[in-house]
């Protein structure tokens, strides 16, 4: 053994590993590693380091980097090591560079040469190492440098080399399909390789190629089928058996390929039916790998042209999966069910209880898979239950990624299958409330659109009912703390648009609520903007309805002035109400806001309240959010106005392209300011809005040509008409009043609703409307698009009675196919549960018996369940010894023959001993080992003590364990003493390190 030790590492390295293993905090670990890096940095550049030492340094570097620290200073040494002639060093070098470097690293250039040379080496191990590096390090540019050699290696005499060469070629194909496109035929050729391993390796690239283009490989269907047949009939060498299954991984790959080739191809599918059927029939569902093949068969059967026999067989397998206790199998069963359900929806019906069980399972993965299945089988009849379940689950998950996903699923299902508007709105409320800002903003826009448009039927009563129910639900929800921003935007919009529509709520109630929102979410400017706009709408509707508006006292002044200027038009009188209104403070605050958007909205609101009824009605017509707008692209309505201005000596407009050519720009600057304002984005996004004081009284200081002051009454009304249409357009764009913001957003390339800007923003008397109109022109294309999408209404909700029945069965008893409240669902479900269970219990017992018999005849080869309690809690009726013999030693498991009774007897003590040993480790936590072991303590005695102390509980095991605790404990002792020899003292944590991974306990 010597001081070098079996681990082949020096004491230093072992010490490093040990101290890191015992580090109590990340900081401590970092300190140790940094120290190690310092040491390595210093020593690695020392001259004349023995090669063996160098190799160890490299390994230590790799280790350091695995722990997340930068080891780049040593890369070059790893590269140098690949040049070494010594095989061991070369391989170490290659290992290190493949772990260190990525394909674009600068040092690659130094390796390509070595790789080229090594690919030609006589020693196949060198070739393999080089091929390994090729896979990781060669990029698109360097492929040509090694390609000829790799192709040559496809015909190498060693199958290990051929195998790896194929993989390397495959890798090239993945990285740059064009560079090897002429060599793809090589894969086909290698499919006929004598060595099954090489053939199996070829399936990987072929799978990729067929995924991309199945049609070019239809000719291979026969070959694949015959290969699969041969494999399934055990024609391959025994060494390819795994847990008694013939080459299962090759079978799986082949089934995957067949699934691709047979998809949508009846003829190809027909040639596969027999072999797939055979495999399913012979399938061994007692081992993990057997189930993997069965599952793959189902996938294949559901992908190819359907065959009723195969589907039937698949359904049986699924039944077995779902009834199994293993979560893994349940998971596979649910997944397979999801695939098969496309072909025959009755299958799910048979397994409703199993599905419901999976849904209630504590295992998250299984739950998610089940939701996936439910998603696939959602219909209008069961959508309520399914979406309710999803939301319930969604509330409790913390993983944002998945939350977003499931929220969007809920929305999708709700939009597609909603049985009633009311339910839809409630569902959306819940989704918004709980998933909030994770929901795509588009969903919010869709919701707004839906509320505005109704469900498409020309039933105004239903629509308005929908709206009032939305309003009611929002008023209820508003009180909740911490609502997400997106949801608040929807609420504000709906309250603004429809809050007072049905007359149930007074304007002051609604405005009060809106102000509350704006106040409690004062950091959220978007919400505030929505709230302000909503306020404006509510006031506008009030004014339009001829009611008085109680707003800020300041407004009274404006109102008075308005009255004077409008004289005859003034139809109502504003009262000077002094009572404190929450809006007052809000608007005041917004008027001084840092956000120009909010400021502008506040000013607009202020101005709007000062207008007369007719004007307000034109600006914000009631319930016009869905009206289409007609855009006058030529701005013809301004012609008279322009004419007038020109007559008064204004400069004519010069288009921008023409203007750009002019030498003296300054001449036009003053004009540009006004004229170019038609290209509004630039102008608006950055300029602070002026306080639009009602122009009738406040003369605008500069004689702007677009100033509205002198506009005669007729023109004025014409213009406002257009403005109003703009307003409705913006609302139709369903991002509602967030117009200006959207304009800005669009500048940054967000593809959200690019609704026209300004529109509603402007007081009719300011010069803004002109801008607004021009911009609408610009965006008219977008507008028409939006309108188009209105046309695509939801598909009509269809309820086929048969499906309804299925859902009834699935979620609550066939007796009541109608929709019921979810509470009754549960009750009835429980009933059916009980009924079905009792019915099923018979079969369960039978299958149990079968299983029991099986275990008696043959120990379960499913070694993956080694450590699971099933072993220890095995019913006494089963011969414990027989059970154990299969389970004890994994080395046994891979030997294909299970009937080796003799070897089993020799193994049994082995296991027993280990049992003792592992219990020791369990105990060590509570006492024993926690005292630092001072070097020479007799570990063996400790072990036996521990074993004794732990024995009483386990009657079967301990009876034999004590006397024969032998070889395995000795193994770990040997390992322990080896470490000691090297001077590393195992202390507190080390007993764990000795724990047998395969858990022979």
């Amino acid at each position, binding site marked *: 053994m010597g001081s070098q030790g079996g681990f082949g590492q020096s004491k230093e390295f072992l010490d490093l590993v040990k101290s890191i293993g015992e580090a109590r905090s990340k900081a401590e670990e970092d300190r140790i590693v940094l120290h190690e890096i310092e040491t390595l940095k210093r020593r690695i550049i020392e001259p004349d380091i023995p090669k063996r030492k160098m190799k160890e340094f490299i390994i230590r570097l790799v280790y350091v980097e695995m722990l997340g620290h930068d080891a780049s200073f040593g890369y070059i040494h790893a590269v140098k090591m690949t040049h070494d002639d010594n095989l061991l060093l070369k391989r170490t070098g290659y290992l290190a560079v493949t772990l260190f470097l990525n394909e674009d690293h600068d040092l690659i250039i130094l390796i390509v040469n070595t790789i080229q040379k090594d690919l030609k080496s006589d020693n196949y191990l060198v070739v393999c190492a080089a091929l390994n590096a090729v896979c990781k390090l060669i990029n698109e540019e360097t492929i040509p440098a090694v390609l000829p050699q790799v192709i040559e290696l496809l015909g190498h005499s060693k199958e290990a080399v051929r195998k*790896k060469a194929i993989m390397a070629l495959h890798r090239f194909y993945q990285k740059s399909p064009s560079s090897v496109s002429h060599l793809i035929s090589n894969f086909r050729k290698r499919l006929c390789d004598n060595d099954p391993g090489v053939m199996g390796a070829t399936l990987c690239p072929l*799978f990729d190629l067929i995924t991309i283009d199945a049609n070019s490989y239809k000719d291979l269907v026969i070959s694949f089928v015959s290969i699969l047949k041969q494999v399934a009939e055990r024609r391959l060498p025994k060494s390819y058996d795994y847990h008694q299954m013939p080459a299962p991984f090759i079978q*799986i790959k082949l089934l995957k390929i067949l699934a691709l080739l047979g998809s949508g191809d009846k003829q190809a599918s027909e040639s596969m039916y027999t072999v797939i059927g055979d495999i399913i029939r012979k399938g061994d569902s007692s081992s993990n*790998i057997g189930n993997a093949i069965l599952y793959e068969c189902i996938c294949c059967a559901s992908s190819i042209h359907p065959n009723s026999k195969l589907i039937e067989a698949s359904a049986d397998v699924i039944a077995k999966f779902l009834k199994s206790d293993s979560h893994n199998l349940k998971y596979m069963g649910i997944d397979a069910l999801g695939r098969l359900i496309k072909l025959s929806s009755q299958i799910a019906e048979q397994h409703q209880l199993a599905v419901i069980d999976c849904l209630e399972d504590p295992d998250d993965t299984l739950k998610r898979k089940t939701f996936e299945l439910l998603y696939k089988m959602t219909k209008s009849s069961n959508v309520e239950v399914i979406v309710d379940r999803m939301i319930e689950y969604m509330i409790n998950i913390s993983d944002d990624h998945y939350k977003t996903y499931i929220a969007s699923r809920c929305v999708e299902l709700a939009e597609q299958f909603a049985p009633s508007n009311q339910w839809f709105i409630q569902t959306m409320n819940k989704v918004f409330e709980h998933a909030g800002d994770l929901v795509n903003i588009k969903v919010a826009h869709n919701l707004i659109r839906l509320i505005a448009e109704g469900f498409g039927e020309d039933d105004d009563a239903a629509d308005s009912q929908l709206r009032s129910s939305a309003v009611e639900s929002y008023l209820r929800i508003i009180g909740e703390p911490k609502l997400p921003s997106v949801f608040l935007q929807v609420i504000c919009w709906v309250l603004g648009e429809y809050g007072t529509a049905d007359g149930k709520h007074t304007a002051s109630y609604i405005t009060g609520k809106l102000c509350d929102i704006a106040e409690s979410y004062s950091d959220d400017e978007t919400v505030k903007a929505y709230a302000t706009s909503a306020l404006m709408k509510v006031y506008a509707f009030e004014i339009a309805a001829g009611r008085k508006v109680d707003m800020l006292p300041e407004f009274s002044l404006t109102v008075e002035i308005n009255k004077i200027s409008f004289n005859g038009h003034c139809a109502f009188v504003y009262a000077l109400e002094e009572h404190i209104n929450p809006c007052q403070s809000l608007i005041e605050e917004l008027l001084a806001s840092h956000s120009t958007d909010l400021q502008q909205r506040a000013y607009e609101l202020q101005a709007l309240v000062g207008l007369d009824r007719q004007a307000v009605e034109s600006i914000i017509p009631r319930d016009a959010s869905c009206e289409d707008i007609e855009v006058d692209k030529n701005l013809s309505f301004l012609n008279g106005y322009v004419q007038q201005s020109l007559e008064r000596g204004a400069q004519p407009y010069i288009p921008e392209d023409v203007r750009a050519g002019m030498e003296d720009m300054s001449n036009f600057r003053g004009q540009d300011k006004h004229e170019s304002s038609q290209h509004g984005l630039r102008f608006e996004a950055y300029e602070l809005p002026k306080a639009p004081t009602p122009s009738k009284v406040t003369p605008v200081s500069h004689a702007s040509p677009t100033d509205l002051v002198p506009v005669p009454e007729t023109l004025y009304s014409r213009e406002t008409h257009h403005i109003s249409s703009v307003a409705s357009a913006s609302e139709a764009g369903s991002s509602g009043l967030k117009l200006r913001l959207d304009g800005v957003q669009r500048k940054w390339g967000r593809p959200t609703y690019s609704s026209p800007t300004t529109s509603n923003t402007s007081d009719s008397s300011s010069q803004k409307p002109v801008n607004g109109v021009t911009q609408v022109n610009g965006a008219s294309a977008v507008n028409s698009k939006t309108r188009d999408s209105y046309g695509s209404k939801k598909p009509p909700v269809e309820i086929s009675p048969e499906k309804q029945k299925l859902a009834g069965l699935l979620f609550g008893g066939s007796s009541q196919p109608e929709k019921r409240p979810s509470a009754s669902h549960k009750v009835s479900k429980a009933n059916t549960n009980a009924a079905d269970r009792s019915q099923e219990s018979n079969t369960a017992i039978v299958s149990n018996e079968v299983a029991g018999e099986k275990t008696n005849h043959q120990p379960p080869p499913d070694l993956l369940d080694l450590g699971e309690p099933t072993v220890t809690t095995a019913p006494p009726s089963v011969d414990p010894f027989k059970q154990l013999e299969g389970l004890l030693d994994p080395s046994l498991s891979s030997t294909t023959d299970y009937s080796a009774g003799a070897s089993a007897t020799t193994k049994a003590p082995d296991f027993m001993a280990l049992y003792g040993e592992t219990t020791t480790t369990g105990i060590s936590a509570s006492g024993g080992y926690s005292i630092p072991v001072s070097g020479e303590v007799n570990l063996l005695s400790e072990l036996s003590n521990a074993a004794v102390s732990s024995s009483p509980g386990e009657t079967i095991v301990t009876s034999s364990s004590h006397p024969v605790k032998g070889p395995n404990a000795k*193994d770990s002792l040997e390992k322990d003493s080896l470490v000691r020899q090297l001077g590393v003292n195992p202390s507190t944590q080390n007993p764990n390190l000795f724990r047998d991974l395969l858990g022979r306990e």
Partner: protein
Amino acid sequence: MIRAVLVMNTQGKPRLAKFYECQSVEKQQELIRNVFSVLCSRAENVSNFVDAQSIFGQDARLVYKHYATLYFVFIFDSSENELAMLDLIQVFVETLDKCFRNVCELDVVYNYSKMHTILDEIIFGGQVLETSSTEVIKAIEEISKLEAASNSINLVPKSVSAWRAR
């Protein structure tokens, strides 16, 4: 294809990390941490599959298996079969077990480069290369033998030779 193979102990310390897609060192650490936080939140007796899309992006699945003090984790995409991956982990561990005789965490820690050699024989460039642990052992032995032959240092781990003697 297989995207990554991770071995970490129950305290989250990485014992082996191999990524078949290029990742920066920082990213690797982040992935390891995320995987660990998922694993330690899993109850016992639940399935061995985890949806890893939030960690590894689209289409990523994760299969793990808990052996004594170690987690073995394979991350792969939809072109692989979950149950088969689970068995591949078993193949890997069985192979380790044969190489090291009753493999334990300590072996994994100290035979870092050998772990990689074994893994490279099973998974190559993200594809499953060999699934028979007997074949893998054969290859490993041959490598050890040749390495030893080309090197005066005796590096055949005693556990392998011991295994062969069995």
